[in-house]
């Protein structure tokens, strides 16, 4: 995955330099800033042709990298793809331009469950791009029972075969859900309880990982992993012994959005591009390329039967009964950090 990212970075540099040499014509340029490997890049070429526009495509690997680059103001992009919590932060800091839904008629295809969320209640700034859940990826050859609860990650049977995420909100979130609390809790006693249970769990944990976690699962290095559904789908496509489950106690719904940063010089093009990405056949190609779940209902309906009805990738409403979005925690984030440091320093 890292190699793929490297290749992409090199490619995007090459594309950038090609783009620079091609100056001189009057073609408007659209600057797009997306996650590495998070779009079928042939789609960009079609957009260029149809709208007679030039697309400069750069990629980033974390929300924070993207944030810093936009915040520092050194570069102007027209379309960016932040995650939910980063959307809140950028909105709070007034970093986003309003979008015009009338110019994006294709937004009507988007799943109403993912429209008008707490992050952007009227979709004045953003539209969902990909979404998913937080759950357990497990290896069916190493786990005999049916996994349906967060308790599995605390089961001494799997000592040293459990991977947790080195991400405070997600790991503390799983602990909170297991205890029956909200993963956005501001109650310090509940947090302390979650911290205590993570400390108890630590001897069972093989490692706290990020990107490398799915590769470890594919290689059969661990039996269970706390992971995001998108990563899980990638893992399953590489190793069919793997399975993903949304635990019954609840989950987190995450999503990445498309938005326009302040300072965009091609607002019109940005709207055209966002509408283009929401054309059913284009959205279909992107979700097939990335392997993540699309919020685009028409694109989903065109996916192969077994994919669009895959309850793990596209959970039913009843699976999401206890699902929550992450809410920006403000000052309490520091208490989460303290709890997490205590777990990790234990």
């Amino acid at each position, binding site marked *: 995955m*890292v190699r793929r990212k490297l290749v992409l970075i090199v490619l995007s540099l090459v594309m950038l330099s090609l783009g620079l040499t091609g100056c001189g014509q009057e073609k408007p340029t659209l600057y797009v800033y997306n996650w590495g490997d998070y779009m079928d890049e042939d789609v960009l070429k079609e957009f260029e042709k149809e709208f007679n526009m030039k697309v400069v495509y750069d990629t980033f690997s*974390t929300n*924070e990298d993207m944030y810093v680059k936009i915040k520092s103001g050194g570069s102007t992009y027209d379309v960016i793809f932040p995650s939910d919590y980063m959307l809140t932060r950028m909105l709070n800091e007034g970093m986003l331009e309003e979008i015009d839904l009338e110019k994006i008629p294709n937004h009507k295809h988007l799943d109403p469950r993912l429209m008008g969320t707490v992050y952007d209640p009227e979709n004045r700034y953003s539209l969902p791009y990909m979404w998913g859940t937080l759950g357990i990826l497990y290896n069916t050859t190493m786990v005999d029972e049916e996994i349906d609860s967060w308790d599995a990650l605390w089961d001494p049977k799997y000592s040293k075969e459990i991977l947790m995420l*080195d*991400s*405070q909100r997600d790991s503390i979130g799983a602990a909170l859900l297991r205890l029956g609390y909200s993963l956005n809790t501001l109650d310090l006693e509940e947090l302390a309880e979650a911290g205590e249970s993570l400390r108890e769990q*630590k001897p069972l*944990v*093989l*490692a*706290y*990982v990020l990107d*490398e976690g799915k590769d*470890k699962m594919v*290689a*059969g*290095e661990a039996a269970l992993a706390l992971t995001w559904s998108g990563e899980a789908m990638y893992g399953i496509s590489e190793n069919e012994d793997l399975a993903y489950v949304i635990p019954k106690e609840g989950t987190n719904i995450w999503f990445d959005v498309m938005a326009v940063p302040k300072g965009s010089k091609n607002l019109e093009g940005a709207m055209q591009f966002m509408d283009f990405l929401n054309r059913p056949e284009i959205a279909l190609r992107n979700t097939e390329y990335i392997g993540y779940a699309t919020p685009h209902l028409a694109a989903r309906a065109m996916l192969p039967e077994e994919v669009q009805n895959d309850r793990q990738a596209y959970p039913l409403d009843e699976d999401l009964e206890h699902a929550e979005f992450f809410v920006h925690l403000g000052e309490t*984030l*520091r208490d989460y*950090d*303290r709890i997490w*440091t*205590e777990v*990790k*320093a234990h």
Partner: protein
Amino acid sequence: MKRSSLFPYLIWMILFIVVPMFLVLYYAFTIPTEAGSTWSLENFARFFEPVYLKVLGRSLRLALISTGICLLLGYPAAMVMAGNAFSRKNVLLLLFVVPMWMNFLLRTYAWLTLLERNGAINVLLTSLNLPRLQILYTNSAVVLGMVYNFLPFMVLPIYSVLSKIDKGVVEAAGDLGANPFRVFTKVVLPLSLPGVVSGVTMVFMPALTTFVISRLLGGGQFTLIGNLIEQQFLVVDNWGFGSAISVVMIVLILLSMAIMSFFEGEEKDVALW
């Protein structure tokens, strides 16, 4: 050199060293308030809570162990390279330097796949009917990663100082009746101390502040001071606390350098760094 020719360097140093240092100090000694920010020692007070002191203690311990191992491995290697007995010293030198040309992250990722349960080393061991090696995601793996990555920083300064020692001095000691052991302890070792001091500093500092090695090879289970700083800036958005930890680190490193230069004695002019 004329004063005016120093000017570009001065500008560079002010812009990229002095100004950032003051920014770090500013963030460390202030806390944000609704009106902006106010002077406070709160960030430092927080650092001295037990949980953070524990992290500091672990970082110091692992850095000291790694530095010690690097010294034990590096000094003999530097001696071999500087000595006359080995004719291909350039090849050996190259072998130490070449890995440094490769990306640090890639080298660490390589260990990750070598050490894992079904990784190359364990496949080899089990095919020889030997027990599996289970050190990935332990302190040992972190120390291994540090030693592997930082060993050249120990070898090169020691080598550079050793190879500059006048052979006549060593021969004279032998002629005057000192046995090889005495020649080493009384002549070579004291003359090479500046190299050792540079090497120890060059290894100890990055080992103390690394966050990639502990995250990848330690499986994120062993928060080191570097991880703590990274987390404050990237995840928690608490630049004040992150800066305060950095300031504590700077003070610690200055202290250790002061202690080092005390041992260094008067041979400063030979030092490489």
